[in-house]
């Protein structure tokens, strides 16, 4: 399950609020007391963002908002907002009505919770408050899945939720612009897998179904209601269309029908083909796929049936399976992973005799096929996303530690950025160096521009002279004169002096003159003046000569220069030593 807490620039954001499907006790939901110890969640959290409608990403939402108590904004995309309550309600029904649990959220709670939701559009920047802004990107995976870019000041985080970098039959690929976040939080379900082309799998799937239909067999495809089921429907529908097939395809009713409505509605969230052709025909208005009725299972002739649930552990899919298992012409295609102990798992492992309740056994004669259609990014996809977004740090979640370890190594090696993989309940702190905005006076800027050089290169820092004034809460960069004026200070000049003694029998004026002529001959290209008050000026350096009081032959040279003109001194030195 996913539930991530991010503190960024003084803001606290909860990313996803998932539940664990495996537990039936308190471990099912995240421990919200951990966040605040004691106190109200609303005070602590600025917002909650839900990436998509899978229960492991949104299952605990009503529990948190209604039972623990949270009144702040909850953000999710439009399709997620539409489909999420259906799933929650279904889940509630199973746990409360079937398993008879108490202390669980009610339908009303789901409704109330949904009232707190603020819908998001793709690429729409939403200001949560003055400083915090969020922006959603397309993520593939399931309808309405989004990645979010969260920004506070100059610091930013991207949270991917679940995403898919290869397009499938009904959804496009995830995309993000080069937003260079400080940290990218990515799922890593397939951290160590590089998948084969989707096309091969699709072709295999279609070929199997086609062959079986041609033989006159029946095909059972156990699915979960949302997501993959729609993809498979589209796949079969287009194939039927292309090949001019006549055998009926049925879809077990219930949840799915409702969900299909939303798929029809949110056509902008689907892939290129569906988006472009929906004017002629909405691909989700299936022509060949009809609603299933229990009595159809006994009809003669070939047919394809999608039935829930996906692991053959209960419900309609199991009933149909029992009916059809005896005929070797029939086929069952498992489109996903099956948990140990379910019939799905057993038959996939080649068990041909199943023990049913009531001690009867079932001979499995039909063909069993396995066809995986998963919509998570594989290792290559994750790397691709990193390249797209160019984050400064990387954080892997939603995966197995061992696999993440491998990917972490790869990321560090390829991109040379830091990569973290916190365990549940662990906190990772990433230091950022936020840039501090400073106001600069226009005059100063113009003066710097006038100083010449090529046009400013945005990629290279450039040094300039100025004074930084910190006043109250603002920073200002102004020229030194202006700073003096503003602060009411006098300008002080720093001059450095040094004495050089040298033996010279001539008089002071002669010595000075000799120095003057010498310098003049040596330092070409510098302005050297012999001033009437007995000094020699080399650029801005003043040279005076006086004889020592003890020994008239020892002349003392007094050199004086201001701070900025060290370079002049250097040339003068050159003049003396040559």
């Amino acid at each position, binding site marked *: 399950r996913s539930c991530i807490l991010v503190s960024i620039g003084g803001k606290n954001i909860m990313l996803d609020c998932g539940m664990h499907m495996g537990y039936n006790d308190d471990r099912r939901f995240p421990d919200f007391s951990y966040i605040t110890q004691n106190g109200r969640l609303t005070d602590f959290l600025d917002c909650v963002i839900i990436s998509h409608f899978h229960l492991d990403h949104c299952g605990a939402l009503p529990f948190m908002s209604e039972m623990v108590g949270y009144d702040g904004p909850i953000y999710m995309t439009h399709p997620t907002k539409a489909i999420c309550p259906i799933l929650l309600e279904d889940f509630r029904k199973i746990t409360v009505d079937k398993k008879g649990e108490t202390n669980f959220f009610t339908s009303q709670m789901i409704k109330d919770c949904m009232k707190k939701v603020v819908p998001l559009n793709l690429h729409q920047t939403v200001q949560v408050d003055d400083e915090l802004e969020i922006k959603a990107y397309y993520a593939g995976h399931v309808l309405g899945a989004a990645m979010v870019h969260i920004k506070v000041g100059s610091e930013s985080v991207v949270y991917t939720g679940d995403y898919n970098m290869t397009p499938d039959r009904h959804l496009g690929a995830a995309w993000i612009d080069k937003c260079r976040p400080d940290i990218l939080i990515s799922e890593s379900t397939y951290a160590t897998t590089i998948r*084969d082309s989707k096309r091969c799998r699709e072709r295999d799937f279609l070929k199997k179904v086609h062959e079986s239909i041609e033989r006159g067999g029946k095909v059972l495809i156990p699915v979960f209601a949302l997501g993959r089921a729609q993809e498979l429907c589209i796949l079969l529908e287009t194939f039927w269309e292309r090949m001019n097939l006549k055998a009926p395809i049925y879809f077990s009713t219930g949840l799915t029908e409702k969900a299909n409505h939303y798929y029809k509605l949110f056509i902008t969230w689907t892939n290129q083909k569906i988006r472009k052709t929906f004017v002629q025909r909405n691909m989700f208005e299936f022509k060949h796929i009809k609603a299933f009725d229990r009595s159809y299972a006994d009809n003669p002739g070939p047919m394809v049936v999608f039935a829930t649930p996906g692991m053959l552990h209960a419900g309609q899919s199991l009933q149909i399976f029992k009916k059809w298992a005896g005929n070797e012409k029939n086929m069952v295609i498992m489109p996903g992973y099956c948990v140990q102990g379910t019939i799905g798992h057993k038959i996939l492992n080649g068990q041909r005799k199943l023990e049913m309740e009531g001690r009867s056994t079932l001979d499995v004669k039909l063909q069993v096929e396995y066809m995986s259609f998963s919509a998570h990014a594989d290792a290559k996809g994750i790397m691709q996303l990193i390249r797209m977004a160019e984050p400064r740090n990387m954080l892997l979640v939603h995966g197995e530690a061992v696999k993440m370890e491998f990917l972490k190594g790869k990321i560090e090696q390829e991109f040379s950025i830091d990569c973290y993989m916190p365990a549940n309940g662990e906190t990772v702190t990433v230091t950022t160096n936020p840039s501090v905005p400073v106001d600069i006076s226009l005059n100063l800027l113009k003066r710097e521009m006038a100083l010449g050089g090529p046009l400013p290169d945005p990629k290279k820092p450039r040094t300039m002279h100025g004074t930084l004034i910190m006043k109250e809460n603002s920073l200002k960069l102004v020229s030194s004169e202006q700073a003096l004026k503003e602060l009411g200070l006098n300008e002080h000049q720093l001059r450095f002096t040094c004495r050089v003694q040298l033996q010279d029998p001539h008089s002071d004026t002669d010595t000075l003159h000799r120095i003057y002529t010498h310098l003049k001959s040596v330092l070409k290209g510098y302005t050297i003046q012999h001033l009437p008050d007995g000094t020699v000026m080399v650029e801005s350096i003043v040279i005076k000569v006086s004889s020592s009081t003890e020994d008239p032959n020892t002349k003392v040279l007094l050199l004086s220069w201001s701070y900025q003109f060290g370079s002049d001194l250097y040339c003068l030195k050159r003049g003396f030593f040559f």
Partner: protein
Amino acid sequence: MAAHLKKRVYEEFSKVVQIPHEEAPAKKLRLSKPSKSAALHIDLCKATNSTDALQYLLHFARKPVETESVEGVVRILLEHYYKETDNSVRLKIASLLGLLSKTQGFSPDCIVDDAINTLGNEKSHQVLAQLMDTLLVIGTQLPESPAVRQRLIEVACKHLSDTYFGVRNKCLQLLGCLGMVDTPLTKDNEGLVRDVQSIISDYFGDQDPRVRTAALKAMLQLHERGMKIHEIIYDQACRLLSDDYEQVRSAAVQMVWVLSHLYPESIVPIPSSNEEIRLVDDAFGKISHMVSDGSWMVRVQAAKTLGSMLQVSPQFLEQTLDKKLMSDLRRKRTAHERAKELFTSGEFSSGRKWADDAPKEKLDTNTVNLIASGACGAFVHGLEDEMFEVRIAAVEALCQLARSSASFAEKCLDFLVDMFNDEIEEVRLQSIHVLREISTHITLREDQLDTVLAVLEDSSRDIREALHELICYTNVSTKECVQLALLELLKNLNKYPTDRNSVWKCLKFMGSRHPTLVLPLVPELLSTHPYFDTPEPDMDDPAYIAVLVLVFNAAKSCPTMPALFSDHTFRHYSYLRDSLSHLLPGNGLDLVDSRCGLGSVESAQLFLQQSLNRVSTIQNLEAPGAQDLLDFTIRDLRRLGELQTELAGAADFCATYLRCQLLLMKALQDKLWNMAVPLCLKQNVTATAAAQQILEETYKLEFLYSGLDSRQVATIHHVRLQAKALQLILTARTRQGLDSLISSCEKFLQDIESFQRLFLTELPHLQDSFVDKLLELMPRLSSCKPVELVKILQTTLRQSGLLQLRLPEQTMSINSRTMRIHRATATIIEPTGESDNPLRFTTGLVVALDIDATLEHVQDPQNNVKVQVLYPDGQSHVIHPKPGDFRKPGPDRHRLITQVYLSHTAWTEPSQIEVRLLLAYSSSSTSLSSPSKLGWSDSIDSLPTPETAVEGTIPFSKPVKVYIMPKPARR
């Protein structure tokens, strides 16, 4: 009334006469047509505010300006420019300057200085940018003067440091368009000599992405103008590949591509290692990387460019298809590899078990390269892209690369076959086409063939036909493959009976390609049995015909095969040989009495030439002998055309021409010509008919045949002129109305003139011909009376001899197949005209008739081909098919698949209508009017010549009869 008068009086008094001030400068101008510029000037002066001035200028810009007055207008505009304070008006003036200097015939060198001067004290950046644009236009108009260029370049360099991106953009554009190719000498303020390239490349690092793009584009422009781009640019361009902005990346991809073509063999180091690789490989790797870019525009660009990088080393090329699979850190085989393995182990794919793809060996974590360094898997990504534009580009690139490398073709086969399953039809079609193009390199494995053939059930006709086309060219490896293909094709035939012809053709090639693979299958295919006679199959069964086509075509090159045939097979052969001659081999089956071997094309060519030469001796013969000779020659030529398909067009062309001559000769040489008019009515009728026929034939000659040169066209026109003369004489003899005679005489004279104009270059070859003589007499003709003219015509016509036809030079050489004379032909495949069941429909409603026809050697069929429907009552409809109904399956070949709608009032009996295809022509769009052939096209525009109006249609397909029955509507 009084009040009204009073009002008028006041009005008169209070009228203020406005005299436009400052008219003087307009008079000073030296202009041949001062009106235009003066008007502009007055307008501009009148304008009180900038909005008005802008309005005037906008209005002014709509009208064209004569070449002579351009300079004057420019001066006025410039004058006003200096006075104007409003930016938008100045901007408009600047753009007008550019527009004006584009005027044809005007040389803008006189305004260069002024235009440059305006830059000096311009403050507005927008106007500056527009001025630079104007200078660019001026510069491109003056390609011949290097001095102006040099100046413009200096100006551009000066303004490159402008703070506004538009100005920098335009300066770079100017440098790109005008930068000196040979003498790259521009001095910057430090006195260093720098060339245009280094100046432009400075702006690769500009802060504005638009300027960076402009710099790259300018560099590409330099390249296009033939300047050799320095190799140093490569590094800079590569850096820009990772720019934040897509247009920069896109331009950078192009830049890298250009450089990889310029310096393919240079060596570049690989960063972070001390290895070195060829530049083209490096560039290939980098562009491959861009195939997984974030922006799809860049991805398309990158995928397209990859296709043309043919110099890349094979190991890099093959990496683009490489994608190491792994699962839980263990190496996994791809589905392709598994399929291959299954195949090699001789085991059929019986369906996959769960965890069949379970990973095998453990991978060393260090060797797994997740982020593809270099070219790794570029095409794998491209082919799986979200946008079909990228996928198509990738497929095309694959095709180009595969055509040049056989091993790569072999490797990319799996991926292309996968694309047959794409969700977008365009992509599927494209990949089928691509596979056909590279099919010379490849042999399909059984499992691949299986996938390919699965597409045969596609409901789209285009896809199926493309696939048939592909199978025609495919090599397969085993006899099982042949059998599989045959089975699938028969299945297809069963499901879509309209594919009959296409499937048969497919099997024809299949048979002739794999005779040895077909041999072992023959007994099974023909279901013969060693001991028992099997029943004779039904000859009308398309599936049986399909099998026979396959077998007979294989038997052509496999002499042992006929021994396996049973008696009825031989009978069927001779039947099919007649009914479907295009599908069966013409000779080579020793079971049939072999036809006499045809000579080679050369000998046929020689024969053709000899026949033509023989005809030229006609002058010396007496009339009947000459006619006989022509008759025989025409017969010979027609036969030659039938036998030698290579020369069919030419032979047919000659025969038709000779037929015209024959008709003319017959019409003229009748002895009855000197009789009085009333006595020779019958004679007149035949002669008129002949003249009419000759005219028709000449149009056929001109428009039905492609590959004619101007000489032949002139000859055709000459015959037409003769026919027209004949018509004129006949009119004069029969009709008494003088007016009509005068007008037709005039028309004829115009015809002669236009002939002369059209074929000025050909006249020397037409010596001693009818036209030659007429042209000599031309002064007299144009002045004399119609009766006299007719007389002259009559004598000249009878005296003039036959003009010999020459075949174009190209036909003489056998090797050049490009410029042969071809006859446009059309065959209607559907409807077949064999059906006895009438098509019934209710009167007043329409019925759609499917038409499927192949057209060969038709130019521009979308405009020229029409469908004609002839009803039994003589009513006829001409239907123009939609452009989308034409497909182009091969060079010089088109396919028309369309529907025509029929309707008619009620009939009592079913009856037949005729459907045929027409070729429309109009002499304004003839093969002649292409200006490349002759230099007269300029003159024809100005003169509205009468013969441009000639339009008509030629039926060029056999008519097909369709049985229809409109029933009366039921009340």
